């Protein structure tokens, strides 16, 4: 009689467990696709990520620095992205884009894959015709042309190198190919330079309230050149951006007076990476900690002197050299 019981058990037990299984309570499902900005614009622009708010005749303009050449403007609950690239915009807590402005087709300003992912029905992509070779553009703007996009007057300002290039005779940014933008938010005139030298068309701008000046060394103005340029067109406020390899201390503040210089962090990933490193340390993930600190150091070398980084590095050293003799 033992055998049938054994047989029954052999058949029923695995069958029952196969049907009911063991549910795990420790796992959660995640998508491998990068997240897409999807937060409500009003909530984002009322939140703490906004670094600057500029009053206009018809509401407030909010500014969120993204990364490198990426800027996010919020106005009338519309989100205007400038040169969005990954991984800065792989963030569901950013708002859906209503308009995307692309200044030039280079890879640090235009990521066709990211742009395709950002597009939603109704999103308007504005860019110079040169961008169309890589990504669809809804409103192609040649230098000097203007269009109204969501109550904002957008004017394309020439953005080019005069002589800056890999060898004499070649330039990184040819004249007529790329756009800077002059944006009129209800009377508040905001200029976004893109990668440019201090060209005559830029120096001739008037009544600029806020200027985002790119210092994308070696492809655009150096901080010293940007200082001289500010002295030429006198914006009320200048915010350096795209300054990955520029030493902002080299800006000549005296020359820029009375323009107010506002420094914002356009490389916040370093702080995020360091935060991940500290979290990793708490979980004993030493290798991850070192990777994150090294990545952060590449983006923001100055941050190495932060006491938390110093202490974490000391812990890592002790881990890597555990022998007391």
């Amino acid at each position, binding site marked *: 009689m033992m055998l049938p019981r054994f047989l029954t058990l*052999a058949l029923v037990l*695995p069958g029952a467990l196969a049907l009911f299984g063991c549910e795990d309570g420790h796992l959660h499902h*995640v998508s491998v696709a990068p997240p897409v900005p999807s937060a409500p614009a009003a909530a984002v622009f009322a939140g703490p990520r906004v670094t600057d708010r500029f009053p206009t005749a018809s509401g407030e303009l909010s500014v969120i620095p993204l990364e490198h050449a990426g800027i996010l403007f919020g106005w009338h609950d519309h989100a205007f992205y400038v040169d969005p690239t990954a991984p800065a915009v792989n963030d569901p807590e950013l708002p859906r884009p209503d308009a995307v402005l692309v200044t030039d087709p280079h890879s640090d300003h235009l990521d066709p894959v990211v742009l395709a992912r950002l597009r939603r029905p109704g999103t308007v992509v504005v860019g110079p015709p040169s961008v169309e070779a890589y990504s669809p553009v809804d409103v192609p703007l040649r230098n000097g042309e203007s269009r109204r996009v969501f109550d904002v007057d957008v004017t394309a300002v020439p953005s080019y190198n005069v002589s800056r290039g890999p060898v004499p005779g070649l330039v990184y940014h040819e004249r007529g190919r790329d756009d800077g933008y002059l944006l009129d938010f209800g009377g508040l005139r905001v200029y976004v330079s893109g990668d440019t030298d201090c060209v005559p068309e830029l120096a001739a701008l008037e009544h600029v309230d806020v200027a985002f000046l790119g210092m994308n060394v070696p492809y655009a103005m150096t901080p010293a050149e940007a200082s001289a340029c500010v002295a030429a067109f006198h914006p009320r406020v200048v915010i350096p951006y795209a300054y990955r390899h520029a030493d902002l201390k080299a800006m000549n503040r005296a020359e820029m007076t009375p323009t107010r210089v506002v420094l914002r962090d356009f490389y916040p990933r370093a702080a995020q990476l360091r935060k991940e490193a500290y979290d990793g340390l708490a979980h004993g*993930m030493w290798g991850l900690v070192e990777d994150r600190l090294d990545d952060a150091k590449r983006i923001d070398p100055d941050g190495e002197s932060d006491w938390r980084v110093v202490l974490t590095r000391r812990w890592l050293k002790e881990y890597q050299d555990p022998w007391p003799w």
Partner: protein
Amino acid sequence: MTPALVRTAGRVAALAAIPTILLLAVSPLLLHPWTLGQHNWDQMSTQREVVVKTLAHFHQFPFWDPYTCGGHPAWGSLESDPIVVSPWLPFYFLVPLAIAIRIEIVGWAIVGAAGCWRLASRFTQSWALRSLFTVVSLLNSRWGMQIGAGHTWHLLYGLLPWALFFFDRSIEAGAPRQRARRDTVLAGVIIATMVYGDGIYPVPHTAMALGIYALVLARSTRSWRPVQALGWVGATAMGLAAPKLLPLSEALLRFPRIIKSDEAMWPQYLYGIFTWREGDYAASGDFVVGMWHEWGLYLGWPALVGLVAAVVASRGPRERALKWAGLVMCSFVLGGFHPLMPWSLLHLLPIFKSQHVPSRWLYTAVILLACAGVSGADRWLRRFAERRPRVEAALGFAAVLLAIQMGTVTRVPIAQSFVNPIPADPDRETPFRMVHRLPPRPDYVAGLWDVATLPGVYDNVGTLECDTDNGLHITHRDAEDRMPGVGAFGETDPPYRGETYDAERIAPARIVSWTPNDVVVQIEGAHAGDHLVLNQNWDAGWSANGAPAIPYRDAVAAVLGGPSATVDFRYAPRTLWWGVLGGALSLAAIAFALTRKERA
């Protein structure tokens, strides 16, 4: 029922369990044959397409991959050219890529199943036990999740049981010497095949398994024979794989693959790894560093309990050796949460320094322990004497149920991954150009890193961003946010000056003929001493008109001797011919050893 009928029914059930789990596991591939996988599959599909395109369209050996990362060695890379020396290569020429990939996956699974059956037959003659061993150790959820995630090197674990089988048979007491020699060679051939297939994890795992098995067995039996055989297997494998190993070593010396590995497996979660019915390869969790496909290995409670009991019941020197090997690997699985943990110490050694995710050892550990368990279960079966056919029949039916139970989990990640449509492009030979990143396509979804490379191979377009090479990888960035070692530029990078250019002047250079390994460039109006640059990453294997090409800001270049020149840039790994010589000598030595007559 007569005993004969019971025995036959049991055998049929036992045999049926293997195709049951196999068909369940790969059913998504068969039901939807025209899809490609996600996650790392773009990389894997690209590597295969590069091989096919280079061989079929350019009639060249795929030494260099110009399509990804700005160009990198293909033959000398850890994970490139995986199908060149492979039984599945002909299928890649005969059928479309998606179908060939399916043939490769199913083919390796069948090879693995046959290997498991043969290996288990070294420890039992029971069909049910051999079937249970195959079901539990080969096509568990780890296999499904790794394949779903695009870790195609995992397929080569299908050769591990064969390596162990031939090795074990080669050291069998009383075995004919000629057969023992042949088995030693076959074990070496199998490991060499793993090397050619880019078995980045299966190779060291198999070597470690054979190593521990041989050492423990040598100690138990007080004989040097296992160690001696191990040496011959290693020498055979390295000799036969020399044409790949030497170029690979050359590339690794330039870009050492040193990966930090501090992942820890907290013991309290060990039960969950085996019993959570979770097939989502991308699932995450508190203790999961990375994703679930590196951790989960679903067996279910019945199989787990049976496995542990059978392992405990096993006796004998070979079983002891298997248990030691399995347990040592289990100790690696616990990871590196302390500097003196086994994995932390092993990770200090060469080769293992290049590995991470120690939970990957678990797959090999299960194969070894289950193999010992087969022997333990066989001891139980022997006690049943005349009732054995009925018990075996019950086990055979249990194997079918287990196959269904496990197969339904194994299939989930494959169904989850293989949803990408195939880019509807034929291979083109239009003028080659490099881009930073391919534009998005509605008919192709990028892989894990958001970087797509496969459509570029079809279109003859190279991409700068990639995840197909060890040294050049999108996650490695320098202060300029570029991958170190990348000298090529994409056409949307500011310094891009064409696919070939005069670095100092604006003298026009043009490509006269282009193939992956051979690019002929003409230039006029240059100055002597100018650098003529080819927009590919430099590697020591590049030559210019027969002389070594020089690196110009990490790109391939030649110094011009006059105003006009025609320069033939060619690529071949520098150590290739030494490797071929080593391989040929090994073949000659093997032929001599196998044909040598025994002295009377």
